[in-house]
């Protein structure tokens, strides 16, 4: 790696100060994207700001109304945390399928979001869990809905000097379920050809909330708002699910690459959406 300076602030203010006026500085959480990119010469940084000494970024805590997940908490802690497993089982599941065991010891869900890869497994699920990103920067603290966080491949909505502090996940209502499904040609440790996150709440036989988001079929993780409009107010049924899956398939804007041709990806969007919706609605 090319030489760089390193600081490890212990408070949010110190981190804001370290990043201020240094637009080329990079934030280091688990490093499984950043350090691999820097070693491969795909990214350079004169200054690396390690945020893992800031308590807020490493805490998982239940709050009034939801869960606050520190941006740098490694996946292995998320996957094994009792509160996460009880209240957000789909999040525990997704944390256990990003990378292999040793990667999960470092890689964070916050980093998965900030890296802004179209294929990021955690992001569709965060979108359907209605997660909100809390960001710190020179202008203070602000919040960004997760569906607005990724703006282009590898580009996020963070402004100059800003960094992700944590994610807030609203407490699931009674009857709420979420699920993430992906297609990979092997059993583990692979990049999603297509990923589908879904969530829904069923109250007294009627769908009251529904969200669907896709991975690997657009320049960014894709929130398919039409699915919400199509499902809310209906009773769960095979027809309703098929209609929503068709909307997901139509919304996808896949490309052909070494992992799959575009038509195959589009087909998978329909199949996986139907399966994932069936899992949460029946």
């Amino acid at each position: 790696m090319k030489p760089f300076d390193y600081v490890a602030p212990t408070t949010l203010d110190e981190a804001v100060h370290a990043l201020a006026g240094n637009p080329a500085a990079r934030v280091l959480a688990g490093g499984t994207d950043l350090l691999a990119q820097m070693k491969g010469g795909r990214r350079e940084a004169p200054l690396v700001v390690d945020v893992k000494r800031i308590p807020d970024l490493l805490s998982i805590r239940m709050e009034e109304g939801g869960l606050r997940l520190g941006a740098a908490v490694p996946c292995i802690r998320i996957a094994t945390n009792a509160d996460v497993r009880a209240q957000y089982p789909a999040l525990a599941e997704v944390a256990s399928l990003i990378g292999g065991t040793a990667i999960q010891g470092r890689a964070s869900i916050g980093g998965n979001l900030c890296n802004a890869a179209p294929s990021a497994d955690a992001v569709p699920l965060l979108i359907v869990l209605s997660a909100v990103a809390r960001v710190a920067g020179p202008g203070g603290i602000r919040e960004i809905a997760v569906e607005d966080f990724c703006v282009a491949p590898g580009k996020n909505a963070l402004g100059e000097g800003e960094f992700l502090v944590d994610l807030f996940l609203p407490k699931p209502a009674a009857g709420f379920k979420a699920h993430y499904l992906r297609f990979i040609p092997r059993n583990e440790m692979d990049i999603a050809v297509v990923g589908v996150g879904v969530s829904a709440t069923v109250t007294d036989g009627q769908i009251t909330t529904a969200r669907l988001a896709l991975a690997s079929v657009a320049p960014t993780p894709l929130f398919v708002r039409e699915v919400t409009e199509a499902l809310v107010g209906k009773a769960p049924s095979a027809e309703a699910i098929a209609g929503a899956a068709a909307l997901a398939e139509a919304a996808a804007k896949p490309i052909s690459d070494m992992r799959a041709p575009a038509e195959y990806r589009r087909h998978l969007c329909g199949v996986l959406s139907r399966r994932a919706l069936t899992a949460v609605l029946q």
Partner: protein
Amino acid sequence: MKKTYVSMQLNGEPVEFLAEPSQTLLECLRDTLHLTGTKEGCGDGNCGSCCVMLDGTLVTSCLVLGVEAEGRTVTTIEGIAAGQKLHPLQKAFIDHAALQCGICTPGFIVAAKALLDQEPDPSEERIRLWLANNLCRCTGYDKIVRAVQAAAKEIREEKQA
């Protein structure tokens, strides 16, 4: 680039060293501290041959900066045996011929120990999934899985005795 002072616990002993921020923990272990048991394979987190324990969590040391280890506890393959007595995993790898060239072996043993420390009786599927982050180009993996199963059994029996 100016070097940074780092102090950490390494295999139960305090150590101090100087590291450039761009040096990985793997480079610091091998080149500065001369513990060459930890191997470099791919250098980008895919092969698992550089696995170490960092504060009790399994990590690939090629994707950790040496300066990040300040105040932390690190265990490498050199810290697995009890003095001259091999750990049951080390003995089982020899008994089951679970290695040929041996480059991947330290990573496999550190990773397998991380599993057995928290799950004393994992299924074969669990072992294979846990070790999917470690690549071996010689053995075809089967002997490695058998060695881990044998070591797990021995550790369980030792505990009962």
